[in-house]
């Protein structure tokens, strides 16, 4: 039986990464993510995994991509300012289809902002921070236990879809300590990148395969091929031929967006039996659930839709959840970064109310309760 322990979100992320098979970590210290680096530095040598502290966040991003090309399961952890520095290489990982995980423990921004205080301000940065039209996967857990399991999922998705995955903790969850009860020997599905089975001379590393994700050989396995951040043909070499470029860019987006049903995960509470729907993620979803519980006890029909996967969005699912509601309320610790997606998806068919906090404090249940009462007036 698993021992009950008090564990911090950042530590759960570190443990989840090791469970997922992370064999390489490169990072640069930044509050509020630093505990992840500290845990990796402590735990990795014992299992022969490799840790390096780099000179900055750009170097950290480069190192994990290089390590992944050489066969490692690699990740880094940072916060908003560092994540901004990494953005060029998030795009590099996307275009070269090298699986890596970027953990971003969100803090108040812009710039240095409030380094020790919480925010959910990187929702759109995670999606659009790097230039170009690739797609991305991003995940936001709401508890310490979920952080553990979703970290494993982040690695699995990176490997399965050959893509960078952004793991969006917020400072509240990253630094929260709570009950952690996990059997270290628990059987959990671990996905590793699909390897080519053909002869090296027949290997087409960026082939337009059905499903959009070609098998990936690691360095040293006899398939000598080329990664480049230039737009490339299926062989991996630079190409500016119009049909090649167009097809390539569309595949990068489609391999994620067309598999949204496989990738997207959410929690739905009383979604079918409510007049007002709350849509919340990460730490704020806990406030939303508490508000919902209190309101339902008082007979007010409120439901909660909690996206665990932030990107890509299962738009059909959100549309269905919102249909026919008197109002949808989106509480978040930014000025409406997810609410704008909900507005776009429901396209005026349901009123969408934003409940935004950008003073570094977690949205409190009472604020949500007040807004529900307001919209039901």
């Amino acid at each position: 039986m698993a021992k009950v322990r008090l564990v911090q979100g950042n530590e759960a992320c570190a443990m989840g990464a090791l469970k997922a098979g992370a064999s390489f970590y490169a990072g640069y210290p930044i509050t509020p993510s630093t505990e992840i680096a500290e845990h990796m530095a402590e735990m990795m040598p014992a299992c022969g995994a490799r840790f390096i502290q780099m000179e900055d966040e750009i170097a950290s991003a480069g190192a994990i991509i290089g390590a992944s090309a050489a066969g490692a399961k690699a990740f880094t952890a940072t916060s908003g300012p560092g994540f901004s520095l990494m953005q060029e290489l998030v795009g590099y990982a996307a275009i070269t289809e090298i699986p890596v995980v970027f953990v971003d423990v969100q803090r108040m921004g812009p710039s240095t902002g409030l380094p020790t205080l919480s925010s959910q301000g990187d929702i759109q940065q995670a999606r659009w921070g790097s230039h170009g039209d690739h797609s991305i996967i991003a995940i936001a857990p709401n508890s310490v236990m979920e952080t553990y399991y979703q970290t494993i999922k982040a690695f699995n998705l990176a490997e399965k879809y050959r893509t960078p995955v952004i793991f969006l903790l917020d400072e509240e969850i990253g630094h929260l300590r709570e009950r952690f009860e996990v059997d270290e020997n628990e059987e959990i599905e671990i996905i590793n990148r699909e390897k080519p089975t053909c002869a090296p001379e027949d290997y087409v590393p960026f082939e337009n395969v059905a499903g959009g994700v070609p098998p990936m050989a690691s360095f040293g396995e006899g398939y000598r091929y080329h990664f480049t951040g230039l737009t490339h043909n299926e062989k991996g070499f630079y190409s500016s031929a119009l049909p090649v470029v167009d097809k390539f860019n569309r595949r990068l987006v489609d391999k994620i967006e067309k598999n949204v049903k496989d990738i997207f995960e959410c929690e739905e509470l009383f979604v079918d039996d409510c007049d007002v729907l709350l849509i919340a993620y990460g730490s704020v979803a806990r406030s939303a659930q508490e508000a919902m519980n209190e309101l339902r006890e008082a007979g007010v029909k409120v439901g909660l839709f909690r996206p665990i996967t932030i990107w890509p969005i299962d738009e059909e699912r959100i549309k269905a959840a919102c249909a026919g509601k008197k109002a949808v309320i989106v509480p978040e610790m930014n000025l409406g970064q997810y609410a704008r997606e909900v507005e776009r998806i429901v396209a005026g068919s349901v009123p969408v109310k934003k409940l935004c906090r950008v003073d570094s404090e977690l949205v409190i249940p009472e604020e949500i309760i007040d807004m529900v009462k307001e919209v039901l007036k």
Partner: protein
Amino acid sequence: MKPIYQEYFRNNLPHIWCAGCGNGIVMSAWARAMDELKLDKNNVIGVSGIGCSSRITGYLDLNTLHTAHGRALPFAQGAKMARPDMDVFVFSGDGDCAAIGGNHFIHACRRNMDMTLIVINNNIYGMTGGQFSPLTPFGKKATTAPYGSVDPSFNLCELAIGAGASFVARGDIYHAKQLTDLIVAGYKHKGFSVIEVIASCPISYGRRNKIPNPADMMQYVKDHTVAKAVAEKMTPEQLEDKYITGILHEAQGREYTEEYAKLCERVQGGDK
């Protein structure tokens, strides 16, 4: 036996470089070094940044990684950490390595990870059409220094030595055989090996600085490079516009991946 270029280059030539460019000479000097070292290509990783010189990796029949501007060394160190048993060559240029990648360069020297960095210094940003770099000599012209550069340059090799690289050498494209020897020596040295190569860009540098002819450019390289042994007998005035070539620094240093492996052993043995 196959010619060297067939053995070590991919079947995708001709390359993109201008006539008279020095990059091809460096690439073939590297291939001759490979031929001498008899390395297993499957076990060799080639990493480069962005710029004319960094396009080299596209032509090498290795496991290759053409990365982002200035970032070749972080990628290379990540790859080396993941596979310490593999050989790593990094190709960079003066802009890529000394400007945007300058910080990574310093820290790669400091860590002393076992790999060989070849910096092709043609004194200019060639691919973007001739802007000055941190290695463009004072007073020389570039598109962003149309009246001559007032931006001081620095000595990359001295920087490397100061930052802790355990092997530092300088070669040039005129003395191609010496360059091959330096690459071989750099590879054999355990630790971070830096080889700066004085090269030519007749199009973006030469034309603006009164050496537009590739042959004259080659002559310029010959005239401005001095072997270390000869340089030792010259006065500072005589050496003022000269590049000293040869192995400039060689030392035993702790190699990063070995130290990390020892650390793992120590931790696994229960000793902290």
